[in-house]
């Protein structure tokens, strides 16, 4: 779903951008100078993908020609322009949050993985592996922050409608009592967080229900086996330029104007392939 792994980019776009190709195994890799296109047609050239890649020598295996290349994670762009979330999240915040902080996480991760045995997994797998059951490896912080931020950009959209609908709304009402109860719980969780962390709405795998979860630093619910639905970055760099210490206003603006219930619905639908939430509630007007 949301990942900085190379394969996702191409799937979203539907064609191979120039300067990318497939090797004989079908793995896609970037060559220096690639153009990166987001699903919304925004052409960006993130600096990290133009960095020189350590390229191995071409080896020919009999009749097949295969090349060894070093793959690395690219920086995905938010699916909207950087000023599209104004006035609730300023362009300057996004330029720094995405363009500097998120980019740094990805670049540092690539640096760490160059000579590491962890090389070669998807970002989700990498996050789970490097968490190492509570004793995180050095790559964990960077991998998890890269994943978290990808997820966060896609949890927001410009001109967001403030209510979910359909099965997601039904599930929220079932698990929280009402949508406004859920919003209150979310706010309470956010205000109760001390230090840096994230607030998530997750679908819990074992309990088969939605819950609001608060995590510290770079921890994300993937490591618990749960399915994140939306997230909110409560690190100070996410809101300090726009709201200073007024976190309550930041959270309420997020909830009322920024959160993307489209993404949330997509995610819960996907999660239901793994978690049986029972029969869907069919609206009475549709019964035969």
């Amino acid at each position, binding site marked *: 779903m949301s990942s900085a792994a190379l394969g996702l980019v191409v799937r979203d776009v539907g064609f191979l951008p120039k300067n990318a190709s497939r090797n004989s195994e079908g793995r896609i890799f970037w060559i220096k100078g690639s153009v990166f296109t987001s699903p919304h047609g925004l052409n960006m050239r993130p600096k990290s993908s133009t960095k020189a890649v350590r390229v191995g020598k071409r080896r020919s295996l009999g009749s097949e020609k295969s090349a060894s290349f070093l793959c690395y994670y690219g920086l995905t762009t938010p699916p909207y322009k950087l000023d599209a979330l104004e006035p609730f999240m300023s362009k300057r915040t996004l330029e*720094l949050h995405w363009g500097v902080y998120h980019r740094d996480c990805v670049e540092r991760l690539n640096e760490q993985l160059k000579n590491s045995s962890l090389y070669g997994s998807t970002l989700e797998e990498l996050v789970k592996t490097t968490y190492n059951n509570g004793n995180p490896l050095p790559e964990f912080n960077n991998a998890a922050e890269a994943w978290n931020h990808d997820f966060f950009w896609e949890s927001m959209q410009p001109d967001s409608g403030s209510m979910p609908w359909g099965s997601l709304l039904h599930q929220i009402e079932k698990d929280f009592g009402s949508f406004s109860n859920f919003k209150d719980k979310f706010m309470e969780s956010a205000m109760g967080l001390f230090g840096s962390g994230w607030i998530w709405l997750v679908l819990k795998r074992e309990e088969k229900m939605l819950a609001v979860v608060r995590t510290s*630093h*770079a921890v994300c619910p993937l490591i618990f086996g749960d399915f994140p639905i939306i997230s909110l970055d409560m690190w*100070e*760099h996410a809101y*300090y*330029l726009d709201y*200073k*210490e007024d976190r309550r206003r930041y959270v309420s603006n997020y909830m009322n104007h920024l959160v993307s219930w489209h993404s949330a619905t997509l995610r819960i639908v996907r999660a239901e392939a793994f978690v049986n939430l029972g029969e869907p509630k069919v609206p009475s007007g549709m019964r035969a």
Partner: protein
Amino acid sequence: MRMACLASELSSSTALVHPLPHRWRSTFPRIGGTGRWPSPKILRCASINVRSYFQLIPPPYPLSSLEPYMSRETMENHWGRHHRDHLNSLNTHIAGSELNEMPLEEIILTSYNKGDFLPVFIHAAQTWNHDFFWQSMKPGGGGRPSGILLKLMERDFGSFELFLKEFKTAALTQFGSGWVWLTYKSNRLDVGNAINPCPSAEDNKLVVTKTPNAINPLVWDYSPLLAIDVWEHAYYLDYEQNQRSEYISLFMDKLVSWDFVSSRLEMALAREEERAREDASNAEEDDLVLADSDAREMFLDSDEDDAGTQ
């Protein structure tokens, strides 16, 4: 630190009425710290009940005087809102409880609760930490330390430059929110009333420590000398692009108050001496106790008894 100005004004008789933990009685170079009205215990002798609370004292320099390295806007937000909020929450939490009568450092140690914090810990620790932080800086600061401080740095880190490198690395690698400290570590084991069986002068040394969120080295019984706040609110407004690394470099080059660090080191060394004296006198007392006890008389001292046992 809290009671600095008041302890010096009170007469020794009242000090006996309410003996403060001696390690915190040392005076501070400036008036205040997180100032507090007299503890009710002192005034109880005079039949006056005073409800005490902590006051917010401003940094010992105008808010705009650290420009351009730390802007007035940052100081107004950092001191005027964050620090003030923590102080207000602290006062709210301790009102009416037994913590209300304790000095701030004791509140921190009590509420730390060996890692299982009570809710007031965050506010108490952040109040203390910020107060310490304002005093770790001064306008026109920076430069090099001197005297005993420099000597100890050279002994424990190799050189001042190596210390700077270690400090900056620690500040850059503190992930998320937290603080980085230069502390004086003593060799005291935390085993209740036991004395370290193998004390060594090498255990008394300067170390760089980093702590997450609100924790400070007081909880490990270290003596903090210098603090840098690496929560993002400390530098995000001023150092948008290069962020933490530039902030740390400029803090060390232009803001740090080595006078303050030296004075804290003096306090730490004095504390260490006092403890060494205490340990020595405790050891003497133990020896005396052993000398007087009946256990000594277990040795047989006559041949008749020997014959009896054979």
